[in-house]
């Protein structure tokens, strides 16, 4: 049996950490919210400013949930529905009109959803298992047994599972950390 040791929810300017209010932004739109939360966390990480919104969301959620984590073998299983839609639209806009054609590598690199895994891995130096899944709703049917498998087979010591919605200005992050000990049983009811 494995347990959820920490969990976090970010949406509409609000952060709930382990079910308790952690942060309330004056801004509900993502840009203002992300900036304010970054400042509140007193981070010095210039790479943050280069990230697209999906990566910023995954980065901020991971930053909070991994506070105090000492383990480096943490698998990252991230998911969403729209993949990297925000950056995809931006890159498409750069190439749509042949008269104003200027694809940018700084945008194009974010047109893959698993770049968010790369950003979190770099930040926390996780040389670990990872996977990005796409689904219409959180794929708990697959992530529950897969998480158990990674832990039971010794392929990871902890697993960070996350859902990162970033469509227009509709954003939502739900993440939880699974390990050997914790207050909440890791089962279908608790992860849904």
């Amino acid at each position: 049996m494995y347990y959820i040791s920490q969990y976090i929810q970010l949406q509409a300017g609000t952060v709930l950490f382990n079910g308790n209010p952690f942060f309330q932004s004056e801004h509900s739109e993502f840009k203002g919210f992300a900036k304010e939360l970054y400042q509140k966390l007193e981070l010095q990480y210039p790479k943050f400013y280069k990230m697209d919104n999906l990566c910023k969301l995954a980065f901020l959620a991971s930053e909070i949930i991994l506070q105090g984590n000492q383990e480096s073998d943490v698998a990252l299983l991230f998911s969403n529905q729209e993949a990297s839609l925000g950056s995809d639209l931006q890159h498409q806009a750069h190439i749509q009109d042949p008269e104003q054609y200027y694809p940018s590598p700084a945008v194009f690199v974010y047109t893959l959803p698993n770049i968010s895994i790369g950003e979190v891995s770099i930040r926390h130096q996780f040389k670990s298992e990872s996977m990005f899944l796409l689904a219409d709703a959180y794929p708990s049917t697959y992530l529950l047994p897969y998480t158990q498998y990674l832990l039971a087979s010794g392929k990871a010591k902890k697993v960070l599972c996350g859902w990162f919605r970033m469509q227009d200005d509709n954003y939502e992050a739900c993440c939880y950390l699974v390990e050997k000990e914790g207050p909440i049983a890791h089962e279908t009811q608790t992860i849904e």
Partner: protein
Amino acid sequence: MRSAYIQESVIISPLGFDTAQNFKQLQAGNSALRKTTLSASLGETVVAQLDEEALNNHFQALGVESFGSRMEKMSLAALMPIIQQRPITANSLLILSTTKGNIQALADQDIQGSFIPAMAKRIADYFAFQQEPLVISNACVSGLMALSVAKRFIQMEQVSDVYIIAVDELTPFVLSGFQSFQALSPENCRPYDQDRQGVNLGEAAVACYVSSVKEADSIRIAGDANINDANHISGPSRTGEGLYLSIQKALQEANLKAEDIDYVLAHGTATRYNDDMEAIAFHRAGLANCPTTSLKGYYGHTLGAAGLLEAVITAECLRRQFVLASLGYAHPGTTEPMHIQQETLAKEIKTALKTASGFAGTNTALILTTD
């Protein structure tokens, strides 16, 4: 724990519409790469593109002409012959691997049309899968990761068997991006060669059946790992750390040592940095002297399809006891020496390593064996 086996596969590529045709073309040393102008903005690029007329004829012969986007049709055409032979059960899993899905829809302002889970659902419904499809989008390792994940779900006894589709299209979206990175080769790519100038892009749809039953032609997945470099989002690691660790962990699980590996089918995109990264990782893993092939000189880089495409070719090499020449290679050009396979020939091989690496520092290693 039960074992997972690669059974039959179908490759839809510019080199043919089934795996046997594809393998024959590889044995003959034929490349699908051609100089092509996809749009005035892109100019001339060297790519491996499916012939539209041949593809449409193939769709029609299979009876899929009225179904969805081009990419969905490619996916159906790949999977249909397998399902005709291997009927799905209530507990069968469909895995779809793609980096960009039908991204072409964005050019027509069709945002919904670009959503990958909806496409996966339509394919699953077409074949009447009862389980939700599992969709992996993990850059250029996606197709190989799909095999790794299929093996794990079979080991967990969560599913009876797995049908995988790995697919990506050649689009101005992706070509323009690689062009902006100045990563495209103006000529046929030359993996690991001193004069390599970058990557060529291609397209393919590949389907593969994975189950727990050992059959006459089965190839066992003996070990696997997917480890991130934690180094850079677009540049390969200078130490090859993630790839090295992936190989180590896969070997460990398979209970094998580097000297047990008879053949390596590597990633080999022919960019300077990727190939050097692999050379360093293979050197560290004790595989510098193992015959190594990249298939990018035949197919270009088919992104989310590449890992599965190259893995099922590796399985064919093991079945037929053949190694393939790494097309485009003539002179050593990596920071650590490698043993690049220069000829296509019959050879006794029992165990092979297949690797892939991609943006976000992602790596996958898979060990395939005939036993």
